């Protein structure tokens, strides 16, 4: 079937199998491999991306369901000038990542948390990220990073608009 999806500002039409998961579409059809797949039960959140403003687990979305949608992945967060998104910058400053595998999903989920709640408490961050698993950090520095990012204001809960990103 044919889908037309805008990913990181770039719209493309592709012929895909009806059963193709959005996570595999992003990785294999669009070549955006920052989005990782860590489970097969919608448990780990490594595949989290932003679809039409909402953070979703892309392993549980069919590509067909995203037809016509705006999708943002980790690759689409950085400004044209190379400036890191506030959440990216905070993850670096607070050592919120180690092996990096959960990171793309964690960053996108954190943006989703901050979109809903621009000034969360420690507990609210933890509850907001409950569906994203990390084995390396013990969550300590991830929580700190999200709280740090919140200090950047509303931009921390937003994704760049219509910005082209090279695969």
């Amino acid at each position, binding site marked *: 079937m044919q889908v037309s999806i805008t990913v990181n500002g770039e719209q493309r039409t592709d012929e895909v199998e009806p059963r193709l998961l959005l996570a595999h579409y992003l990785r294999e059809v669009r070549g955006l491999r920052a989005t990782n797949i860590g489970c097969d039960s919608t448990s780990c959140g490594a595949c989290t991306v932003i679809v039409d403003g909402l953070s979703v687990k892309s392993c549980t979305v069919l590509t067909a369901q995203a037809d016509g949608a705006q999708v943002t992945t980790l690759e689409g967060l950085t400004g044209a000038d190379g400036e890191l998104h506030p959440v990216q910058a905070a993850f670096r400053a607070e050592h919120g990542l180690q092996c990096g595998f959960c990171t793309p999903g964690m960053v996108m989920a954190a943006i989703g948390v901050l979109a809903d709640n621009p000034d969360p408490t420690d507990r609210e961050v933890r509850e907001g990220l409950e569906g*994203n698993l990390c*084995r390396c950090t013990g969550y300590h520095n991830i929580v700190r990073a999200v709280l740090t990012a919140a200090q950047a204001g509303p931009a921390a809960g937003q994704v760049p608009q219509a910005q082209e990103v090279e695969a």
Partner: protein
Amino acid sequence: MSILGTRVVRTEDPLFLTRGAVYTDDLTDERLTGALHATFIRSQVAHGRLLSVDTSAALEAPGVVAVVTAADVTDLVPIPPPFPFINAEMTRPWLASDRVRFVGDPIAVVLTEERYQGEDAAEMVVVDVDPLPAVVGTAAAAADEVLLFPEAGTNLMASFGDPAPADFFDGCEVVVTQALVNQRVAPVPLETRAAAAAWSPDGRLTAWCTNQGAQQARGQFGDWLEMDPDLIHLITPDVGGGFGAKIGADPEYAFIAWLAKHVGRPVRWAESRSENLVGMLHGRAQDQVVTIGGRRDGTVEAYSLVFDQDCGAYPRIGAVLPTLTMLMAPGVYAFPKVHAQGRALATTTTSIGAYRGAGRPEATAAVERAIDLFAAEIGMDPAEVRRKNLLPAFSEPHTTPMGATYDNGDYTVALDKALEAAGYEELRAEQARRREAGDVRQLGIGLSVYVEITGADNGAGTKEAAELEVHADGTATVLTGTSPHGQGHATSWAMIASDQLGIPVEKITVLHGDTDLVPQGGGTMGSRSLQQGGAAVHQAAEELIEEARRRAAERLEVDPTDLVVDLGLAGLAVRGTPGAAVSFAELAEDERLLVNTVFNADAPTFPFGAHVAVVELDVESGKAQLTRLVAVDDAGTIINPLIAEGQRHGGFAQGVAQALLEEVLYDEDGNPTTSTLADYPFVSATEVPSFELVDMATPTPMNPLGAKGIGEAGTIGATPAVQNAVIDAAAHLGVRHVDMPVTPMRVWRAIQQATHTQQQEGN
């Protein structure tokens, strides 16, 4: 001011945060163009005779290029046990031929053009197994009624130590015995296993896999595929966590290479999580009995740890873990008599390997539980019992009754720091208040004091290689035999080189995990990397300065001893002669300025610490919430506190997870019941607090950095502290012990049982 000891943010992160790291399944290497996707068909029966494998329907499925069964694997011999002391009959077939031994045992492989086609075709392979009784748990294994390897005549893989003498506890006023379960857990690195392989026409193999040590893996590929290792180029790209489960090549990795040769095309494989949870090594899985005896004044006089190690179906590192548990049995204590004995047993389950701590958390959990049981029996504060029995501070090596030689330590100070930071007296007062008031939410305070061994000989000795080159453009390259998978070596190793050479961290590239670039190396495991790999970089920098000094002396026509390192210049300057200087970069213009070195550590090191856990326990539901974890972890000199703290945090969460939540379960037929992340209760952000870290640093004399290992401290210290805290919260109700994971159901039952017993005693 030295850059060492400062919070340098990681140089890895900009790429990880913008483009994402490049893991094995992300590779777009041109050598993998046209690669087939491998999908394993695995046994769904724990134990049985394999009667037939019908591949005919699968062969007709779309995209299928080949379906491989044991009958096709005529040129490989089964994998022998990894250690010489294991029963030699316990070999592992590449694909099951006549018998399956655990749910997950590979039986066949389909190779397809596309990934999804593999799953479709795999479902069309018809496997007929005649079930045999499963062997679940060490008691069933030790009974030897059902054998995994009939030709071996036993399920015993190996046996370590002897029984305690009959009079071992004679003379003790108090003797307490308790059976403990250190349950089986799944390491669950977020990146599951993945591998790829391509052969070049000249017979050279390029293999990629997600692993903690490329050089060790290459050696295994060579042994298994009967190849000269020099013909193998093994690459470990970015690795998404390991935690011990990616130590050593898994047979599947080498088999991907064999498949690529078999079909004459590159092959790649990335497993699903449900495949990972049955196929990747599990950890822990010891059934222990502790016995502790001593005087009513709190002095422990004798301690015994007897245990069975479940090793799963095929011997891996799990079979040797008993030796580490036994070595560290007495932990931080000055027990006059210590006994330990362990057996390694085969069961029809997933094989056991190393998991963060690997043998040492099991020792610490046992002795820290034993101390609490002893304290409860004599009615003494567990902190006081610990203090009474801790080894006094020592700065010269101390050899324990189990033969471990600890480098240095001050366990009393570690305990005191932890108690002070936690506000121990106030916590006990609050606990007493809640007990008095009969609160539903009771407070529990759990302690652990630990010492562990890091940088132990992992088969490659206690040494590590490093290469350091300064280039004419002022940049530098470090090659290391360690293999980071989250530990930030690219940053820390650059800091070590920068500290001595003055070249900024951002101009130093650290490369690893490629056997063409780095043929020798021990990988990253056992908390060895900084103390051996980091020390090797330090040594390389010193040697490079000496080579530079020789060249500079000629160039500047001065005596080499008149030259001093000028960090601002990143070069050498003539002492007392302003302007007479030359940079390392300039000295690399005519001839490469490069050194290769191997650092040999004198011995392993023994980091130590003390943890205090605080839980709130709802005594009506049995649900415990960890509210605080206060940790003193002394790993000697810290090179980058930001990274070291991150290592501690991660270990804490895994310790909390084992204490409260996580357990791999099998039913009586050997079916895994926790084989997805929906079933396996992987710890989430809501189940841990932010951690409270206390600094303590006692440099080791075993390496010039003064560094000990930090990677595994968290699981070793936190696990028993959290378990002890939950039990402590219900101690006033008569609860003395609850096995891990200390789930609400178990706690509730223990409270009911204790209450019932107390009522009966009252009648």
